[in-house]
């Protein structure tokens, strides 16, 4: 017989994540997002625009600062709280706006916080947390060989400045940001150039930006950036020389995680609304929701949403643990975040598609948000790697 001490096993949660203060913060964030954002989303989507002032409102309410140190105006560091805000923001249902704010707070600010000098933090991070400056980021991918993909900006040293030339096709929040975190290469003609990161003031001469007009993400300010002899002072170079690829890789893991969190919320919101619609909508004399085929399909979708959520929270748990210096198996976090992104995108797309279907003819009308979730989730993949890249990461992690 096994010998053991029953007292050794208390009924404490073995897998803690959200604490009480997070639950309280979630409630506050939800009320804020509903009042300030969600209630305006339908109008903003029609206009393809929302007030830039929103950054200041969100910053003033303190929502950009959860993961940052009070020294820069933050309320953290608390990664879990910033994940809570990302989720609550995603509930507003306008993926473009969500992408902008996420790019600003979770990507641009985080780059500055982790790799910036104190002086850079003073100039960019603090006012960004306050919502007074607006940041954007160029989307980079790192391929199997550790090469940064699609680097089309070239940086050449000239005195104390760098001269940037070229174009970056996908810059999040790019069309109206005050500054952009962009990767650039010492020489775009060689296969393995030195990769650098810059904080690019968008007011600089030679900067041009073209906002994307896409089938989804209608409120986003994702843009194409083109630089013609743009001078960037060396003090705006970000990160320790030589560590840039590692920084981009590190950042990608966090991006994947946040995108996964938002995808779960997108699936959940679209499912909630489809269920609500089918409860009201009558067909053949009874609510559509009373038909067994819809009940079972909703059960399948609900199951997938919960699987997606558990998978993503596990990745978040690992991320937080690693950030807090705990032991995490090597490669486990990479795998977990790649899986979360892979799985949640699939779930969000399938859920949105079925929820359009559940609306019947109304699913095809722009007055119902169902079609927006369908457009947004399908287009919502930039950042964090394509399906193929993510599958590669997962397959490689098993030694394949």
């Amino acid at each position, binding site marked *: 017989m096994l010998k053991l001490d029953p007292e050794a096993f208390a009924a404490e949660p073995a897998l803690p994540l959200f604490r009480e203060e997070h639950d309280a913060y979630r409630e506050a964030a939800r009320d804020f997002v509903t009042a300030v954002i969600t209630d305006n989303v339908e109008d903003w989507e029609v206009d393809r625009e929302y007030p830039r002032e929103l950054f200041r409102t969100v910053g003033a309410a303190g929502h950009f600062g959860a993961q940052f140190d009070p020294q820069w105006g933050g309320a953290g560091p608390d990664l879990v709280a910033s994940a809570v805000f990302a989720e609550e923001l995603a509930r507003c249902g306008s993926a473009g706006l969500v992408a902008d704010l996420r790019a600003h707070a979770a990507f641009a600010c985080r780059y500055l916080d982790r790799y910036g000098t104190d002086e850079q933090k003073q100039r960019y991070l603090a006012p960004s947390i306050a919502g007074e400056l607006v940041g954007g980021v160029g*989307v980079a991918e790192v391929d199997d060989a550790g090469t940064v993909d699609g680097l089309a900006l070239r940086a050449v040293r000239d005195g104390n400045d760098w001269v940037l030339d070229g174009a970056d*096709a*996908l810059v999040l929040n790019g069309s109206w940001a005050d500054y952009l975190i962009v990767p650039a290469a010492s020489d775009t003609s060689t296969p393995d150039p030195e990769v650098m990161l810059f904080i690019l003031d968008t007011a600089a001469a030679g900067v041009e930006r073209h906002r*994307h*007009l*896409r*089938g*989804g*993400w209608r409120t986003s300010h994702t843009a194409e950036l083109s630089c013609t002899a743009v001078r960037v002072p060396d003090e705006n170079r970000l990160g320790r020389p030589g560590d840039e690829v590692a920084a981009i890789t590190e950042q990608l893991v966090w991006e994947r995680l946040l995108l996964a969190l938002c995808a779960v919320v997108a699936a959940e919101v679209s499912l909630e609304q489809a269920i609500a619609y089918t409860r009201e*909508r*009558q*067909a*053949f*004399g009874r609510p559509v929701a009373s038909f067994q*085929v819809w009940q079972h399909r909703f059960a399948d979708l609900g199951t997938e949403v919960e699987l997606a959520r558990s998978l993503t929270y596990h990745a978040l748990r690992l991320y937080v643990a690693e950030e807090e210096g705990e032991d995490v198996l090597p490669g486990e976090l990479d795998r977990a975040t790649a899986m979360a992104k892979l799985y949640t995108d699939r779930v969000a797309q399938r859920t949105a*598609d079925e929820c*359009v*279907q559940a609306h*019947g*003819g109304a*699913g*095809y*009308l*722009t*007055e119902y948000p169902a*079609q927006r979730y*369908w*457009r947004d989730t*399908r*287009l919502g*993949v*930039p*950042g964090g790697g*394509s*399906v*193929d890249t993510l599958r590669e990461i997962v397959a490689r992690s098993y030694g394949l």
Partner: protein
Amino acid sequence: MTGSPFTTEHDELRARVRRWVDEELLPHVDEWEAADLFPDDVFHRAGELGFLGLSVPVEDGGQGWDYWATAVFLEEISRASGSIAMGLGVQTDMCTPQIRQFGTPEQVERYLKPAYRGEKIGSVGITEPDVGSDVASIRTHAKPTADGWVINGSKMYITNGVRADWVTMVVRTSEQDPSAPSAGMSLFLVDTDLPGFSISKKLDKLGMRSSDTALLFLDDVHVPADALLGTEHEGVKQLMWGLQGERLAGGLLALGGAQMMFDQLLEDAGVRPGAGTGSLRSQRLRDRIAELATDLEANRRLIYDCCDKWNQGVYARTEIAMVKLAAAQLASRIADEVMQLQAGNGYRVGDARESAWRDARLHRIGGGSDEVQRQVISRMMGL
């Protein structure tokens, strides 16, 4: 060629339709999509070219071909845009067949022949707000007057509804009998310029944007006695008579759209930088394309079998519903795969892929949703 149902004449017809699409439609499609409407002239021109009523006997104003000509036309017109295909499909195969079958010689002269000449634009009015696919719940009604009828009610999701000259409409002509809720309805040919007839709303849609879809409102619309189509109170039966042809046409439109997007997928796969034959990326793609090509071919073969039977006067009701279901789903799947190949970039507004993707989604909803087709099929399977 052996195995193909099309004769040289059909191939020539296909070439003519394609030439029209390439030369007169595609150059303007972006502009029409942006304007949320393609011009009425598309109908006129189609009539002029003899593309409307292809499979209709000459004495009814048609072209006297067999059904394969309709198959050719619907497949090819799908290459222009989902909206144009749908608008013309409603004209040729949804609002007119009932007139041909049940109409008086006067109705044929007044509606059918001008429709095939592209001079009159028609639409079909079944669905109502808050009713959906359930014909039994129709509430729009016609009450007899001294010299005709007065109609009140509204009709939803009416393709061509903003510009139509008439609506082939089903309305209730007697009180609803709870034991036979679909009984007591009749078909009417309702002119849209009558007093009391109004367009409540042009619907703003996810896709099919250059097609006009309307919510119609009828407030004491007086129609003459000869607006009644066919037999009084037999409306649902007459409607159902036309259903097979509508579904088959819907399947052919979905197939045409699927083929168009599949061709796009092949083109994109070929020109994608770094995706040369044998590369890892290419292998994944080859598998996906092989599977989609197989699905597409299976759909084509079942649709053609239905067309073949149709030509012999056999309405393969079960298979036609199956074809509508399968082709609609396939069109959506191929559209999705075209998107997938574009990876992170999403779709530029104005790109034909982006609009085709949104257009394709309608097939699973319109003309009887997936769920309706499954219900129909399971009934026909005796379940």
